[in-house]
């Protein structure tokens, strides 16, 4: 490697039960734009968190060299001192502070702890000039758009004398024009000698601006492509991203699919924080009895928003559309009414929205179906225990007792508790949102088995996942979602990772970019 600004060697990072990074080597040349691509969960963010010191030295294995010197960062501050600045997808700006205040946050222009306001705003204005943002630095962050906020983040990075700028999905929430500006800016910076790492799902952008492309898959570096040496095209990159063979990771199921049970027509929903923005755009889907329907898409495609807006209108604004069950229109105005009509939804975020972590397994399992074990509002404790025990055995929840607190269980077992809770409500339609996120391979297999079991009992399952192999391995039929729209539908036989990826990329290329 000639003049590498950054070298990461043999990086391995494990979380309980999951190997997020496995012997990753990653090297960035000075003055290039280096793209890091991979599917959700491939390990891109983990790698960048190792680099920026969010996972401190010692929390991972391997070595990290900046400008040829080995570094051991303990926190973000350490990496920033070396000129490495990361801009996360979720912007770290404080809405009620001004642009200038945000730029110099934790790096204030001050004399003896007293802020020099003149200095602050003069310098801020200078930095805004460099990033090409025409805005008064005294304006509050909340009053400017996301595109401009992204530029403020970059100005902030510049104020820290950045040498290596890392952008994590910088254009995910930007429209076409803003994205273009941002990419132009990166190229300009490159001309001035700055190095950047670009993490992006939008392969088109990567092809446009990157000099070097590193592809991660399943926590390992697959290959590195160099402009001028290798072929760089969307197809080539996608192939690298998904290139894995489908091994027998999914239990077999004999599908016996019946008539249409659940149907959603002309469904729309808007962002409650930004009522002009559509989250779900005229969606039509249907599910048959005993069918597992996959809902594929990238993060932010609107799948969770779709599911939650259907499930008792628990998220979204100005929701419109019609829902049919067994051919009859039903109305799901509250979560309770959805449950009573046989619809359930397991959240993608089981810790913060799926479980009561300080309550025990038993209470978590029965909470959505207390009616079934109570009379005159008095809970029958014997029945409750019996129910919990049944599900503990049936779904193989591994714990010494049903009195174990849910917070003390592993991810896989927590997910089984969530599934138990919803199966106990006796649903006909289950919407499972990322049911295998963050759990290890063995537990994933068990979750797949449970899903198959549900389908063979005649339940209809909508299976949301960002992992394409899983969607392909489990679904009878697949809808592809992007920017709030259904942009494709595949039967089991037609579906392939390349096909779905292309479908997503194509839709991301045309019209407005992914709205969050």
């Amino acid at each position: 490697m000639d003049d590498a600004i950054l070298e990461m060697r043999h990086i391995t990072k494990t979380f309980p039960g999951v190997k997020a990074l496995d012997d990753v080597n990653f090297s960035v040349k000075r003055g290039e734009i280096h793209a890091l691509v991979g599917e959700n969960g491939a390990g891109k963010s983990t790698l960048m968190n190792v680099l920026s010191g969010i996972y401190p030295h010692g929390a991972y294995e391997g070595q990290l060299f900046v400008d040829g010197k080995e570094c051991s960062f303990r926190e973000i501050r350490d990496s920033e001192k070396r000129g490495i600045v990361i801009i996360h997808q979720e912007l770290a700006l404080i809405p009620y502070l001004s642009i200038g205040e945000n730029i110099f946050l934790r790096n204030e222009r001050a004399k003896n702890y007293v802020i020099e306001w003149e200095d602050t705003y003069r310098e801020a204005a200078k930095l805004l000039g460099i990033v090409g943002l025409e805005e008064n630095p005294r304006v509050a962050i909340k009053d400017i758009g996301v595109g401009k906020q992204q530029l403020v983040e970059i100005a902030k990075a510049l104020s820290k004398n950045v040498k290596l700028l890392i952008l994590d999905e910088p254009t995910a929430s930007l429209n076409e024009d803003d994205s273009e500006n941002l990419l132009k800016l990166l190229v300009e910076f490159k001309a001035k000698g700055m190095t950047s790492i670009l993490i992006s799902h939008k392969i088109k952008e990567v092809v446009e601006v990157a000099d070097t492309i590193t592809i991660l898959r399943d926590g390992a570096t697959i290959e590195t492509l160099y402009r001028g040496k290798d072929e760089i095209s969307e197809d080539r990159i996608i192939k690298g991203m998904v290139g894995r063979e489908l091994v027998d990771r999914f239990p077999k199921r004999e599908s016996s699919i019946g008539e249409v049970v659940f149907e959603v027509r002309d469904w729309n929903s808007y962002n409650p924080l930004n009522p002009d923005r559509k989250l779900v755009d005229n969606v039509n889907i249907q599910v048959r009895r005993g069918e597992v329907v996959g809902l594929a898409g990238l993060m932010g495609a609107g799948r969770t928003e779709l599911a939650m807006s259907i499930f008792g209108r628990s998220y979204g604004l100005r929701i419109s559309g019609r829902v049919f069950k067994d051919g009859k229109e039903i109305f799901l105005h509250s979560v309770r009414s959805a449950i009573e009509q046989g619809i359930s939804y397991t959240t993608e975020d089981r810790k913060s929205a799926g479980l009561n972590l300080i309550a025990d397994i038993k209470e978590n399992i029965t909470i959505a179906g207390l009616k079934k074990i109570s009379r005159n509002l008095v809970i029958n404790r014997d029945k409750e225990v019996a129910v919990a025990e049944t599900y503990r055995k049936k779904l193989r929840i591994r714990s010494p007792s049903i009195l174990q607190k849910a917070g003390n269980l592993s991810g896989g077992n927590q997910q089984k508790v969530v599934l138990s809770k919803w199966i106990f409500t006796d649903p006909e339609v289950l919407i499972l949102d990322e049911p295998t996120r963050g759990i290890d391979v063995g537990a994933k297999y068990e979750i797949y088995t449970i899903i198959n079991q549900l389908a063979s009992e005649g339940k209809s399952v909508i299976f949301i996942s960002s992992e394409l192999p899983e969607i392909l391995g489990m679904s009878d039929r697949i809808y592809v979602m992007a920017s709030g729209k259904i942009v494709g539908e595949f039967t089991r036989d037609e579906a392939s990772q390349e096909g779905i990826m292309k479908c997503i990329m194509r839709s991301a290329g045309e019209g407005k970019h992914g709205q969050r």
Partner: protein
Amino acid sequence: MDSAKFIFKNNIRQYAMLIALVVIMIFFQIATKGVLLVPMNVTNLVLQNAYVFILAIGMTLCILTGGNIDLSVGSVVGFIGALAGTFIVIMKMDMALGIALALLVGLAIGVWQGFWIAFTRIPAFIVTLAGMLLFRGLTVSMLKGLTVGPFPESFQMISSGFVPDFMGGEDATINVTTLAAGLVVAVLFILSKLRQRVARRKNGLEDMPALLFYGQILLVIVVIALGSYSLALYRGIPIIFIIIGVLILAYTFFTQRTVPGRYLYAMGGNEKAAKLSGIDTNKVLFFAYVNMGVLSAVAGISVASRLNAASPLAGLNFELDAIASCFIGGASASGGIGTVIGAIIGGLVMGVLNNGMSIMGVGSDIQQVIKGLVLLLAVGFDIMSKKKGS
């Protein structure tokens, strides 16, 4: 052995506070040369702290919903007392009617505050801080800054009356009814514990090891025996004691055994998850504050009855005692954890500290310092032990 550890770890806070209570009692029993547990003083302990117990029960429900507290209860106690004084003393209203009206106003106050907290989601802290000012102001203005009294004798009975000893007769040296009641309570307690144990066994649940189980029963029986003996040696069972007992039983049943009770815990444990499980958390929160309003009114009447007057200063700082009792008794400041019994134990800890130190002649300034430290240590101990556990 594992199971014993498991059970102990899960209940450590309640046992710890119960043990702390016993230790504190022994300490003061020695430090006051036996005055603490003199029959008259035991009775006083109950009478003095009646309001704390009543308020702490309601406060437990509020805290369960997510660490929400009610700062207005002290002022509401004063306000309800003032109303009762106005109705019964000044307007010469029938006592039962006056009490009923006062309770109804308590309910209305609960609805008022509950509305703002639950449906507009103004933080409980703000709404009840406003209520604290509002109802104190109304109390003073209604009473024109004066103390109104005395109440009729029957009204005073609520907090200073005793259950007549119909079993022992006039000249008995000891209150037989009280002893009999104590015996009945003890037997009922043993029976219910045994039934519970049998049921758990039948369900194949890990249960407490026998030693711990019988030890716990023995401890409670000893407390009941000593308590009823003490009460019997003085004037028997205070009427307010029965009111509190009924409230404790009713609310323990409500929180532990009923569906809405379970919703309180679910909401405090994780509101998002509760909502996605079909629980209307706004309603749950609303109910907790309506209930608090009613219980504040109950406490208000009992305080007015004990003072035998409606005073503009009645109930001052009561909210702090109630809140402290809950937290000392193991409630979590972020909700979802806590029990009525725990709050009662917490109230007893505070009560014994107050009473013991007063007997010892410790000034009220130092008393406050010590109570403050106890609150801090109790909660600190809880948080520390949780961190260690996880």
